[in-house]
């Protein structure tokens, strides 16, 4: 009798399980963390202390860029420093540059390149600011920022002083910069620099915070915010601080992420800045060297319930292929991650209607991105997740380590959380921070690299199985800035479907992504038309472009 019951039970179980197996949808977006095979040994060291200094938890930055122009994307990781000295007095605190060998491995070239950096770092922003064809980068950090000029011979020079971009505020002096970004706000052909500052902080005056007698990182409310800064590129290797003249410096927030796009289609690049527990800023470029802050009017200052959120990483790209850049912000557990859809001069909050709220109510994330991972022509959403408190198990009884998250764009206005099907290495929980994107192996599928506190980064190669086609557009400006940052690209597919993207390296939180502009083409083997609107105003059209290639386009 017992045997019969057991057999019957087994049959029932089998019947229950069988249909699930048959109906389980095939994975659409798949990643594989290959860091152990890359030779990368960098481990993000924030010099964690018992005292819980605020700077420890905020460190995040990385860049995906091609510093030696060999067509392979290299990696740069920002690192911490000894506390309280804020000095990189041990190699464990050096920033690290890794050259892509083109065979799946990387070589540490930090010393040859001279880019170990100084002080307690935060973020990095990459661009060719002097239009010499070589990618330079700017480091945002605690009390000090640095500009590294790429000499074109594998080495960089620290030109911070000469360029005048130390980030010293006229009234506050030293600032705590979290992120920085490059864009051409005056369309003069050279890239200007935006720096997002966080809060007034010093090791001497930092408050001690405890929750139920357990030391904890303080709430941002314990600190005064700082204004952001804008530096105009003079075109001769120097910059002028135009924070006040441009109107940017008038607004004090707690800056975290920066992203650029021309949201109102007036030919001038606008700025979105996420703030931590403070309303976000949308700086509309008025085209005359000044900006108007329009986040409240445009409907992007708060979440759906009119609340300030702990805004962190952002991206500013078109998710619904209507030609208008939208905004995606990641935040803290309970906030949800706002998705603002651009209506031309203002935005509609689609967080709940799109399914993003449902997927994100219970998580905290730092980095973010709007990227078409399965090349189906619809950009998906990515979030690198982890709690803010490294002892949140003790304090909130919630995990400090979380797996990353990817939400697939269903193409009908909705998003579906496909993280659980994105591969076993993707589901690994860690103290994730910044994420940067680029096609590391040039297979047309965009990969993701995420920093993780106290351990090696995750190098997620995109193994999404769909045999979709793609294009990577590598812009070479002549009248516009050399990187073509700010250029807007429309791709028309056979049948008339139009895809839209624009060039920007400012993605996520403290991070810098590949400058090449990616398009997933779905089943289309050719793009009927590619139309590029350069920041200079030049409109360039290419027709009958074959798919599955890195297409270099020189402005003419």
């Amino acid at each position, binding site marked *: 009798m017992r045997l019969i019951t057991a057999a019957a039970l087994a049959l029932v179980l089998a019947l229950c399980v069988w249909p699930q197996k048959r109906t389980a949808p095939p994975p659409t977006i798949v990643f594989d963390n290959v860091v152990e095979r890359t030779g990368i040994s960098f481990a993000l060291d924030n010099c964690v202390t018992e005292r819980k200094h605020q700077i420890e938890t905020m460190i995040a930055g990385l860049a995906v860029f091609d510093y030696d122009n060999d067509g392979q994307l290299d990696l740069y990781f920002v690192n911490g420093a000894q506390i309280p000295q804020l000095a990189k007095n041990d190699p464990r605190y050096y920033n690290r540059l890794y050259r892509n060998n083109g065979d799946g491995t990387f070589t540490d070239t930090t010393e040859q390149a001279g880019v170990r950096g100084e002080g307690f770092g935060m973020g990095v922003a990459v661009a060719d600011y002097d239009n010499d064809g070589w990618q330079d980068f700017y480091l945002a950090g605690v009390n000090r920022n640095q500009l590294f000029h790429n000499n074109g011979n594998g080495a960089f020079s620290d030109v911070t002083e000469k360029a005048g971009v130390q980030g010293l505020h006229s009234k506050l002096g030293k600032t705590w910069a979290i992120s920085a970004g490059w864009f051409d706000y005056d369309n003069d052909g050279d890239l200007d620099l935006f720096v997002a500052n966080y809060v007034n902080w010093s090791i001497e005056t930092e*408050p*001690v*915070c*405890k*929750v*139920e*007698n357990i030391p904890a990182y*303080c709430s941002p409310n*314990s600190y005064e915010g700082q204004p952001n800064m804008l530096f105009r590129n003079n075109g001769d290797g120097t910059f002028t601080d135009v924070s006040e003249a441009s109107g940017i410096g008038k607004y004090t927030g707690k800056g975290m992420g920066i992203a650029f796009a021309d949201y109102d289609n007036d030919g001038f690049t606008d700025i979105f800045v996420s703030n931590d527990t*403070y*309303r976000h800023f949308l700086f509309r470029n008025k085209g005359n060297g000044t900006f108007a802050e329009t986040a*409240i*009017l*445009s*409907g992007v*200052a*708060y979440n*759906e*319930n*009119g*609340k300030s959120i702990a805004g962190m990483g952002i991206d500013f790209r078109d998710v619904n292929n209507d030609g208008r850049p939208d905004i995606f912000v990641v935040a803290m*557990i*309970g906030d*949800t991650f706002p998705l603002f859809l651009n*209506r031309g*001069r*203002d935005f*509609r909050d689609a967080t*709940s*209607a*799109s*399914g993003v*709220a*449902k997927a994100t*109510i*219970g998580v905290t994330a730092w980095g973010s991105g709007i990227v078409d991972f399965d090349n189906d022509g619809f950009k998906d959403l990515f979030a690198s997740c982890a709690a803010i408190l490294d002892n949140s198990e003790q*304090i*909130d*009884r*919630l995990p400090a380590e979380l797996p990353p998250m990817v939400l697939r764009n269903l193409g009908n206005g*909705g998003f579906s959380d496909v993280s659980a099907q994105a591969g076993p290495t993707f589901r690994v929980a860690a103290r994730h921070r910044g994420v940067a994107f680029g096609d590391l192996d040039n297979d047309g599928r965009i990969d993701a690299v995420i920093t993780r506190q106290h351990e090696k980064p995750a190098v997620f190669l995109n193994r999404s199985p769909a045999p979709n086609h793609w294009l990577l557009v590598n812009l070479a400006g002549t009248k516009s800035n050399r990187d073509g940052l700010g250029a807007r690209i429309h791709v028309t597919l056979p049948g008339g479907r139009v895809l839209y993207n624009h060039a920007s390296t400012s993605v996520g939180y403290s991070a810098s992504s590949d400058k090449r502009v990616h398009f997933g083409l779905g089943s289309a083997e050719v793009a009927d038309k590619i139309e590029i609107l350069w920041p200079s105003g030049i409109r360039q059209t290419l027709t009958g472009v074959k798919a599955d290639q890195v297409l270099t386009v020189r402005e003419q």
Partner: protein
Amino acid sequence: MIAVSVLLLALTGQAGPAWHEPHLLAAKNYLARGDSDRAAEALEILLSAEAGLPPEVHLTLMDAWLKLDRADKAADAGERAIKAHPKSGPLLKRTGHILFRRSYTNPRAGELLENASRILPQDPEAAIEAERRALALSAGNDAARMQICTVLAIAHDKLGHAKQAEQAFAEALDANRRLRSFDPNAALEYVQFLVRQSREQEAQRIVGEMLHHAPQFGPARLERAKYLSAQGENEKAISEALSALDLAGDDPLQQRAAHAFLARTYFALGQEEEAQKHQRWIEEHQK
């Protein structure tokens, strides 16, 4: 003054275990209307007559003082409440948080929060277990059932258990409907859950119910405004949001939410002057 007189009269004739309920409800109505002064006054008189009233009365008084930006009074009220209910987790936790926010080095805050964590574990799993036990003990008490199910639902939602959250919210709503006085705050949690689930139509049915029972409840007006705006009915949305603003009283968060909605909706309609009026309010009141 009339309210105070009525309250004193009522206090002289107190009878039965729930004699305080009408006064508590009156105080909550004052709060919902933004009249926190009157709510605090009424509750102080109530508690001076009988300090042993349930923790909810003390918690409401603390809310009233906080809304009046009087954290000192809220902390005093909390300490008095703890004397009456030394093992109340919510009182310990709320008072601890108030003291902590006033001074993060206050050892008393640490002590209270530590006690609260023992009595009222913070983790959603433990909260669910604790609330389930409480629920089993509260059969027949709809007010308790409504509150407990709401807490359960919020905890489940935080853990990503949408089905369990839904079930608990639905039970809370059923219990809420059986109460003599519908609690719009509990129903609002359910509404916001449904909105996050992209189930706006269902959410709006509950908003309708909230407005039927508590037409002066501003947050329901704002939920209705958001829905109308999403439907493209911006004029009606503005009318609802203006009501929400009127009803927000001196609650700065409700005020800001209404102003933010009005600023962006007027802007979308091209009425920039009106939009900027609301933007200015936010900028002037931004902390």
